[in-house]
Each structure stands twice: as structure tokens, then as C-alpha cells.
């Protein structure tokens, strides 16, 4: 005997649930037809232990599509023979046996609607509340679709690829057909993507488009959307509408063949200019798009347009960067030609002045030559930066003794400075890499050490090794750097400048290039520094095998 709905086991009842209604335990044909439960918006029904309908409310009758007379007192499987394996029936069977409440979500295909069913054990049977969650479900699906589409749109800067992905994602859950048309000229479009669950139909549609391109001058459809930047929405496409909008018999025949039931065309707009449109068509599913679907499609289109714009802007910026790199490359090449002549003449005059014993001229020409050398390094650095940016920095792979390279660089720099360069430590392991390029790194570090320690008189170069690597440290006792600069000092074009002392000229290329060269060797370039005390730059290069003195280091068993 059911005593009260409030005694139902399980969680919260809907607030509108009637309280304390006494009911007979069996079907009573004389019971009043209008019942308190009829006030419930949710479907409500009770079954006895034999799965016979004992009570059902008006909303419940609407869900199952039967009259009270057709249902009450009947077994569920007699009324609906095909639900034996359905989730809802399996769940009610479980609740009937175990006497524990369950919640089960179901989809009812004939009505294309979703329900949340709360099934409770009650005296002598079970009671079910069926809440229609179709709107919420569609919204959820749309939001999930939008989220997934956004993920695709942001996955790549290749918009053609991402828009195809989005069209593919739209079918079949959101639409049966999805097409993306992009404008290719003032009055021309190109079909970028068309998606349908059946590849044969895609092929058919593409063929159709080839034979009959879209006529943008037509008063409606795609042309209208692109002209007005406003969506076209056809929630219900009737045969009459097809007849009215088809330009000829053949078009009508095709439209009927597709079996349109609903359609939306939404424009893709960048800065108030249409760049294309997305079309969503419902056909075989019989789904009718709602205003909520249109809002969703418009939201999707605005995100897609943004992705297209990002992609185009990125393409333009890449082009600009490539143009700049080409320019730098050409410019540095052009600059080298006059510098070559200048250098030959200067060195020749220097040689002649030396031969004459003209010390004053020698000194001046020596300075001139050093300035030309600086110019040469700057030009080479410019070229290197553009090469690094374009990924065209080539490195040789030779095995050599890094200590010998460091000694050579120290010797060269020592000849140009009054600082005493002390070299300590040792390393026996060879490194594999580009002698010239690594020489460039050590030259850069030593040149910086001299430049940034104008009042010091020495620089220390330490060479060391461990089983995995060779380390070269260059320490100066100069102006040093604040911590804020340490992380950025290897960035391209970064220049340390401060107001409280004189700034040192430079373009911020040397350390960027050095860092890149060392990184490309699989090593690292780091720095520690203290303002006013000096800096230590540390190059670590991988060096897995010990140097086999004198011969090529080959591992033999």
C-alpha cells in the first residue's frame, strides 16, 4: 500500500510534487481522472510489481503518446513490446528488484526528445518521474560542439584545414550537411569544405557544385547573405518554398533529392567585410533548426572568421619577416663588397707605412683597420641573425680539441687588448661541432669581457670537463649586470642600458648569436653576474668521449 509520496526512497522530489496523497494499491477505474499529479510538468507514472501501469499523469500520457484507457492496468511490455531492452525498462526492473532509487537518462527517438527519469521504489511497485531535458540537452550539445569547434579553430593557423575540420565536426549531430564557402573575388566564391556523413553524397555535392557554381546574383541564399552580411534562416523548408526558390526544374529536382527540411546560412565577417559563409542544412534527420541553433551557428561563424583573420595576419607577418630577412641578407652581402675594397686598401697602406717606417700613419691606419674589422663583425652578425631567424644557420660537424680553439681565440684577442687574459684548467675531451662558429662564440665572449670591464686589467678563462661535457668560463671584473638583465641578455636585440652610467654601444646581436650557436651544438650558454663586480659567462658543450691523443678518436673494442 502506498501511503505517501513523501515516503518514497531516493533523493529530492520536484518541489511541485504533491504531498501526502493517499492512493489505492490497485487500479480503480472509478478514481477521478483529474489528479494532483496532473499538475506536474514532469511525466509521472507508477507500476505495480507485475509492471502494470497503476497511475499516470497528463504529462506522462503526452510522453508515451497514449490515452489513459490504453495504458492503465496494462503491462508495459504489452503496450510497448519493443522496450524490453531499453535502458528505461532495464532500470525500472532493477529498481523493482533491488528497491533502490535510480536515475537514468533516456532518449525517445520518435519524438527526438531526452528525459531524465528518476525511478523510486514505492509500496507494491515503482514510481517514475520523467523530466524532459531536450532543450538543455541540445544546448549542452551545441556548447560542446562550439567548444570542440573552437579547439579545432585554434589548433592551427592553416584556416583552410581548420574550417574543414569544423565542417566535419558539424555533421551529423548539428546538421546533416555543412558547407563553407570563401569569397575569392568581389562576386565569386569557392567551396572550401563540404561535409556529410556519407562520402558518396559529398562527392555528389562537389560534382554538382562543379557543374553549377553558386549564382551570387540570386535574390536569396548565399549571395544575399554575402551582400547583406546577415544570416539566412529557414527553420522549415516546405516543398512550396523549394518551388518558389528554385531557379529551374533541375534545381528543384536536386533540392527535392537532398530533402531539405531546415537550413541556415551564416556569414563569415572580418571587420565588417564578408569573407565567406557557413551553411548548415538539415535533411534526412528531419531536424528543424531553432533560433538557438542560429545563434550557435552565428557564434561559430564569428569564431571561424576570427581564426581566418588570425591566419591571414600571421601569413602577412611571416611574409614581412621573410622579406626583412631577405633584405638583411642582401644588404649585408652588398655591404661586404665595399668593405672588402676598403680593407684591402687600408691594409695595403698600412703595409707601405710600415715599410717606410712611418709610425704615425701606421698607428692611424691600424685604428682604421680595427674599425673596419668592427664593421665586418657587425655585418656578419646581421647576416647571422637573419640566418638564425630563417633557420638557415648551417653548422659543420668536425671533431676537435676545444682547448686548442680557446687558446687560439685567447691569443687573437690578447693581441688587441691591454687586459691580461689568464687561461687556466684543462680538458682532454673532444667536442663535435663547427670550429669557426664556436670560435665566434668565444671571440664574442672575450670581446664583451674586454668591452665591459674598461677599468679592470685582467680576464680569466677557465676550461674544465666532466664525464659528459666540456666547460669554458669567461670571467671579467667589470661593470656587471643587475639580475633583471640576466635572463634577457641572450634575447635578440636586447641591450643592457642604464641611466646611472654610460651605455655601451651595440645592437644586441652577439650574445643572441652565441647562445643560438651553443644551443645548436646541444650545449648551453649561461651567465652569472654582480653589478659592479663583473660577469661570468659559461659555455657547456656535450663531450661524451675522451680525446684519443694524436689520432682520430674512434672507439675500438
Amino acid at each position, binding site marked *: 500500500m502506498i501511503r505517501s509520496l513523501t515516503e518514497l526512497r531516493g533523493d529530492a522530489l520536484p518541489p511541485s510534487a504533491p504531498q501526502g496523497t493517499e492512493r489505492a494499491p490497485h487500479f480503480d477505474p472509478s478514481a477521478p481522472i483529474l489528479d494532483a499529479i496532473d499538475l506536474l510538468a514532469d511525466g509521472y507514472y507508477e507500476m505495480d510489481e507485475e509492471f502494470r501501469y497503476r497511475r499516470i499523469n497528463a504529462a506522462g500520457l503526452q510522453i508515451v503518446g497514449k490515452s489513459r484507457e490504453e495504458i492503465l492496468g496494462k503491462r508495459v511490455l504489452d503496450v510497448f513490446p519493443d522496450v524490453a531492452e531499453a535502458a528505461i525498462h532495464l532500470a525500472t526492473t532493477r529498481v523493482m528488484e533491488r528497491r533502490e532509487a535510480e536515475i537514468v537518462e533516456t532518449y525517445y527517438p520518435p519524438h527526438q526528445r531526452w528525459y531524465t527519469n528518476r525511478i523510486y521504489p514505492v509500496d507494491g511497485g515503482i514510481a517514475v518521474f520523467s523530466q524532459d531535458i531536450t532543450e538543455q540537452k541540445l544546448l549542452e550539445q551545441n556548447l560542446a560542439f562550439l567548444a570542440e569547434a573552437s579547439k579545432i579553430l585554434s589548433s592551427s593557423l592553416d584556416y583552410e584545414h581548420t574550417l574543414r575540420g569544423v565542417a566535419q565536426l558539424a555533421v551529423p549531430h548539428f546538421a546533416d550537411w555543412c558547407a563553407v564557402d570563401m569569397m575569392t573575388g568581389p562576386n565569386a566564391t569557392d567551396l572550401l569544405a563540404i561535409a556529410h556523413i556519407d562520402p558518396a553524397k559529398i562527392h555528389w555535392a562537389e560534382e554538382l557544385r562543379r557543374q553549377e557554381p553558386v549564382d551570387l546574383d540570386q535574390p536569396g541564399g548565399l549571395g544575399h547573405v554575402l551582400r547583406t552580411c546577415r544570416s539566412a534562416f529557414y527553420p522549415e523548408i516546405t516543398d512550396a518554398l523549394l518551388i518558389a526558390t528554385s531557379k529551374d526544374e533541375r534545381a528543384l529536382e536536386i533540392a527535392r533529392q537532398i530533402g531539405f527540411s531546415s537550413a541556415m546560412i551564416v556569414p563569415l565577417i572580418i571587420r565588417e567585410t564578408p569573407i565567406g559563409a557557413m551553411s548548415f542544412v538539415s535533411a534526412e534527420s528531419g531536424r528543424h533548426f531553432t533560433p538557438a541553433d542560429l545563434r550557435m551557428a552565428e557564434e561559430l561563424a564569428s569564431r571561424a572568421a576570427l581564426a581566418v583573420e588570425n591566419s591571414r595576419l600571421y601569413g602577412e607577418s611571416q611574409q614581412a619577416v621573410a622579406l626583412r630577412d631577405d633584405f638583411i641578407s642582401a644588404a649585408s652581402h652588398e655591404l661586404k*663588397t665595399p668593405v672588402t*675594397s676598403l680593407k684591402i686598401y687600408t691594409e695595403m697602406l698600412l703595409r707601405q707605412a710600415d715599410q717606410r717606417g712611418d709610425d704615425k700613419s701606421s698607428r692611424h691606419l691600424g685604428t682604421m683597420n680595427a674599425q673596419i674589422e668592427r664593421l665586418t663583425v657587425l655585418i656578419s652578425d646581421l647576416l647571422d641573425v637573419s640566418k638564425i631567424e630563417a633557420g638557415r644557420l648551417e653548422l659543420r660537424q668536425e671533431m676537435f680539441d676545444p682547448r686548442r680553439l680557446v687558446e687560439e681565440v685567447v691569443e687573437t684577442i690578447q693581441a688587441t687588448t691591454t687586459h691580461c687574459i689568464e687561461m687556466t684548467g684543462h680538458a682532454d675531451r673532444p667536442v663535435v661541432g663547427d670550429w669557426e662558429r664556436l670560435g665566434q662564440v668565444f671571440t664574442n665572449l672575450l670581446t664583451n669581457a674586454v668591452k665591459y670591464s674598461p677599468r679592470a686589467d685582467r680576464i680569466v678563462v677557465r676550461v674544465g670537463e666532466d664525464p659528459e661535457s666540456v666547460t669554458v668560463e669567461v670571467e671579467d671584473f667589470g661593470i656587471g649586470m643587475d639580475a633583471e638583465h640576466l635572463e634577457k641578455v641572450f634575447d635578440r636585440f636586447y641591450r643592457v642600458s642604464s641611466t646611472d652610467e654610460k651605455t655601451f654601444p651595440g645592437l644586441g646581436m652577439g650574445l643572441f648569436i652565441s647562445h643560438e650557436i651553443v644551443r645548436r651544438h646541444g650545449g648551453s650558454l649561461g651567465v652569472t653576474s654582480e653589478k659592479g663586480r663583473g660577469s661570468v659567462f659559461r659555455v657547456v658543450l656535450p663531450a661524451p668521449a675522451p680525446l684519443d691523443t694524436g689520432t682520430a678518436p674512434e672507439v675500438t673494442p
Partner: protein
Amino acid sequence: MTVAQPSILVVDDDPGILDALRFLLEDTGYLVLTNENGDDVEALRDENGGLPDLIVLNVLLSGKDGRTICRALKSHASTRHIPIVMISAHPDAERSVKEVGADAFVAKPFAIDDLLATIAGLLAARRDR
């Protein structure tokens, strides 16, 4: 061939470089011939009193590629023996000039001592042969 004053043919499309190299090489004691655009260099023949003892050849010439000239000279029996020093403002050109048979590569801009040492080395090697 005059051992005392070896002749060097310089091919470069930049007149400034040609003048500077002429100044440098003549001052060093070489006999210098110049050619601005590489015309006829591929078909260098012993018509006007001998072939040069060495060629300094720029990689990029207006309208011509110095490497094509180098390959042609190195594939012809009568000019194969002439040492060729290729020069370029593109330091990466070194690999490609070695592939066409150049004997040496010097990147622009260079220290004159580097170029002179390279030239002297090649001439000495040829003399010794």
C-alpha cells in the same frame, strides 16, 4: 711562364674590388689581368702569350656564376692545372666551390695576408710539382 713574376687573372664584377686587388697583387709582385664579367674566361685559351698562373674568381658575377666557370676550366685539359681561388661575400659558399673543383676559398672581406698566403701556397705547390 715567368717564375719571377707569376700572372694572376682576377675575375670580379665589382670594379672597386678589381682595382683594390690589382693594387694589392701588383704591389706584391704579380702580373695582374682583370676581367669584370667572366666573359670568355670559360674558354680561356693560350692565344695571347700564355695562360695565367692562378685565377682569383668571385662566386657571383653579374649574369654568370663563377662556379660554372670554375667547373669548365677544371674539366678542360689545357686549363685544369691552373689553381683557382674563389672568393665570396657569402661565407657559406665554401662547400659549393669545393664541389666545382676550386683549390681554395677566401671569404670577403679578408685580411690581405690571408689571401696572399693562400695564393703563395698554391703557386709554390704548383712550382714544386
